[in-house]
């Protein structure tokens, strides 16, 4: 079975930059969780997630964003989300999660 999710991490001077592309749903969620938590756990700085290639996210995926944020908040750090498509942003707004993350 082919997966529709690709995650790529780049280390920048402002901290890790995570490119997410494809679809985050119940099928790809575990892969997303493993990769994102690894980045968050391994970082002393803020984490930026670039969603320019992200076409779909469901509540499982949103829950993982929240989980990752909780981890970073423990250390007084933040998660920045950039380049969200409208359909993705809509889900953050509907669930109120747009108020937890710094979204550009």
């Amino acid at each position, binding site marked *: *079975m082919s997966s*529709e999710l690709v995650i790529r991490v780049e280390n920048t001077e402002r901290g890790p930059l995570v490119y997410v592309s494809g*679809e985050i*749903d*119940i*099928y790809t969620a575990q892969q997303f969780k493993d990769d994102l938590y690894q980045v968050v756990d391994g970082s002393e700085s803020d984490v930026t997630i670039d969603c320019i290639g992200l076409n*779909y996210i*469901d*509540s*499982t995926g*949103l*829950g993982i964003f929240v989980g990752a944020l909780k981890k970073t908040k423990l250390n007084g750090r933040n998660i920045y989300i950039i380049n969200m498509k409208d*359909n993705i942003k809509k*889900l953050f707004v*509907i*669930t109120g999660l747009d108020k937890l993350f710094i979204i550009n």
Partner: protein
Amino acid sequence: MESNDKITLLLPCKAEYVSVARLTASGVAARMGYDIDTVEDIKVAVSEVCSRIISVDGISAGDYEITYEVFADRLAITFASNSERADCLFKNDEDGLGMSIINAFMDEVEFCPEDHILSMTKYIEEKS
């Protein structure tokens, strides 16, 4: 009785096929003439219910069924499974993320109607 067309999709309770449910949902909604954003909303709502069915039932639970009923003024979508554990899927979690998405995107959501898991309805907006 209103006459209506029915489209039914039967899927294994496995995460990998939720994407198939999404495409079928998009296909039905697009054909009915909903605008692009509404097609996307219906797709997302369907996907949320599927994910929940799979999470509750697990792989062993066999198949589940999604039925689309096409009316002149609305689309009604019903989910059913032969697993009893799937009965009242969202009962303990009515304000979870999944549930708030479904409620935001559909016009009516009914839990456990008759022998089913959930049914939900989207109306077609009058073109004014």
